[in-house]
Every structure is written in C-alpha cells, then in structure tokens.
C-alpha cells in the first residue's frame, strides 16, 4: 500500500499546527473579540482527530496540547493530557461508530471546546481562589469559547480538504 499520501497528510497537519501556534502566540496579531482570543490549536486537534485513526489522532492532540500548554507557562500540563485523551477517543469513535459530517463535527467541536475551556477555568481560576470569577468568565471565557468554536468550523473544512486531497487509495 502506498503510504506517501499519509506521510504528506501528517506533514501538512504538523505544519498546520505549527502555523496556528505562531498565529495564536504572536503578540497583537489576532484581534480580540469581546475580550477573548481563540485557542486555535484546540479545534485544530479535534478536527484532525475526526478524520484520523486513534493513534495518529492522539499524537496530534498531544502535539497541540504541548504547544497550548507552552502558552500557559512552559509546563506540559492540562491541555497535553486532555487533548491527547480526547483526540484518541474521537479517533476511535469516528473510525468505528460514527460518520464524519458537518453536523457531527460542529457538535463535537462545540461540546469539547466548551468542556475543556470550562474545565480549565474551573481548575486554574476558581480552584486557585482568584477573585471575580463570574465576571471574568462572562467577559473573557464565553467569547473565547465562541471565537474558538467559530475558528473550529474553518479548521474543519481545512482538515477535511487536506484529508480528501491527500488520501491513500
């Protein structure tokens, strides 16, 4: 079986993750929307996992998670673990039990994005005892979730295009 398209696809995913990391972390590049900026790597990993088997999906989740955690303070932590796990599960579910279509993809991206960002907020904001949690969540995290999800729709089509154009037959 010719694997060169798979290699090219994985290379393209890697490049995409790297570019999104640069885009996300460059100061004053992405515009703020109602106090929030998107976590581009989060939907990127999720939408890649929709098309790939569980092991590669997990590695792309891992890579995205490491880069996301770098933004928080050079530690491998929350997103590394959660994204690797979530992407593994997504790869497995969509390989054996579900069909990838726009509705499923947007539903999963929305739920996972909102779930992970809220979990992060719970663990690292509320549990660490910072003041003004409600205010900060409404003014920064809600817009961050929505913004991230909207970017996820674009990334879904991008990764769908990559998957279809670089598919081994």
């Amino acid at each position, binding site marked *: 079986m010719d694997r060169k398209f798979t290699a090219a696809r994985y290379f393209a995913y890697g490049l995409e993750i790297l570019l999104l990391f640069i885009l996300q972390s460059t*100061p004053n590049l992405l515009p703020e929307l109602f106090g929030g900026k998107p976590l581009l790597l989060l939907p990127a990993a999720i939408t890649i996992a929709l098309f790939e088997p569980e092991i590669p999906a997990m590695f792309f989740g891992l890579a995205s998670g490491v880069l996301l955690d770098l933004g928080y303070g050079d530690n491998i932590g929350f997103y590394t673990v959660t994204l690797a796990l979530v992407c593994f599960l997504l790869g497995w579910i969509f390989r054996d039990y579900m069909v990838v279509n726009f509705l499923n993809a947007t539903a999963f991206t929305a739920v996972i994005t909102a779930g992970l960002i809220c979990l992060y907020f719970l663990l690292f904001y509320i549990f660490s005892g910072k003041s003004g949690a409600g205010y900060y969540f409404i003014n*920064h995290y809600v817009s961050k979730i929505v913004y991230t999800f909207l970017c996820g729709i674009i990334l879904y089509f991008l990764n769908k295009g990559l998957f279809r154009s670089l598919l081994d037959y």
Partner: protein
Amino acid sequence: MREFFSEKKAKIISVTVVVFIVLAVLGASGYPVVSSGVNFLTKGLSQVSAAAASGDEKTYDELLEENKKLNKEAADLRARLVDYYDIKEENARLWKYYKIKKSNPDYEIMPASVIRRDSSQDFYSFTVDMGTSNGVEVQDPVITENGLIGFVSSASAVSSKVTTILSPDLQAGAVDKLTKDSGVIAGNALYTDENKTTLTKIDANAKIKNGDIITTSGIGGIYPANLIVGKVTGIKYNKYDATRYAVVEPFEKVKSITDVVILTDFKNKGEIKRISGKEDN
C-alpha cells in the same frame, strides 16, 4: 479714415502695432521682455533637445551599466536606512534602560522583548525572550521606565513567562507616597480590561485619595522599594466586608507592552522588612 478705425480689424492692427513698438522700445532699453518670456517657457524643452543632440550621449550599454550601478546604490542606501531606523529604535530603548540604571545604581537589569502573548494566557500575561541562561529567576520583578509591570512567574532556559500587575496572582506590598498609607497591590478581574489594578488591605482610617501615586514598599524583599505602581483613580468598598480598596491605574499600557526590563538583582533583595511605624506595635 473714421470708418477704417471703427472697423474691428483696424483696431486689432493698431493695438498690435502699439504693443510691438512698446516691446521694441523695452528691448532696446535693456528689458528684453519677449525673449525672457520665450526662454522661460521653452527652457525645459531646450534642455532635453540639447541633451539629445549633444555629442557626449551614452550608449545603451553604458546607460544599462549606469542604471545597474544606481540601482545597487539605491539598494545600499535603503539597507542603510533600515539599519538607521533599527539603530535609532535600539538607541531609544537603551536610553530608557540607561535612565533606569542611572537613577537606581543598585539595580541589575536585563532588557527583554515580548515574544509571545498567547490567547490562552489570562490577565494579559506574556512571554519574554530572556530566561535562566540570562540570569533571570522566578519572582524577579519586571518593570519599564514607567514602573512595575509584573513578575517572572516561570522561567525556562531561553524564555520567561511574566504575570502582569493586572493579575490577582501578583501580590506586592505598596504604599501611598503622599499619605504613607500601606496596602497590598493585587489585580482584580473587574478592572483588568480597563488596565487597572487595586490596592487592597488598606487601613480603615487611611487618607488615601484620587490622584495619589502608589509605589512599592519594598517589604517582603521581592520588589524593590519606590517602584512606581500607578495613580489612584477611585476608592471603592468591598461588597462583602465593607472594607475599602483603591483602584490604581499603572502608567504603562500592559496589554500592548513590547519591551520590558527584568530586575535580576537589587539592594535588599530577599530581605523581609517591617513597616515603619508599625514596628513598635
């Protein structure tokens, strides 16, 4: 005769003759109005035609060569201009650091640039391009010429994450320069978007008021004394315990900052002091 002069044609001829006579008289008297006017109008054209007709014209190859040479010179000059702007910017930056160092000889400073401002980072934290290999340590204060900006909350070999003064994670002893009222500077989510922080734990009888300048107290040994924090823009009451806190606006726009200075060492670093006046209590 009268008929002749009444005709339009005759009038034109008469006026023309008069004008010519006047011009001739002026020309003869040293005022060559006509030739000056014509020369003025045709000078550019004459220059072009003269150059085209001159014997020292260049061949196509020579012009091509000259064009290449001029292009190269233009490119060199552009490069020098870019260098000039870089050096000018660098000079302005170093001048700021020099002023900080001059007014605080005990400061060991490490200039740093913001390289990452990640979407995931709360309270406008950012990452700078200096790390432990440059002598930076966790808890080092981060400042600009306008005062305190934050502290190094984590450091790797080549970069460091800075938690800003807008974050509740930053807690620094501070004092009102005018009234000497002391408190603790800590970020508050309510004021982050307005680029403001708060002075908490102020005394019930404190005389702190709008416009007062807040500086670090130096208590705790993490931040040096007398670092400017900002200006008081309001006094508020806590909802739950009716204690007061002051809203403080830093003199630097933390959201858009690009260059900072990390204080790697200063006098009394690590020494815990007691507040004067409360020492005897």
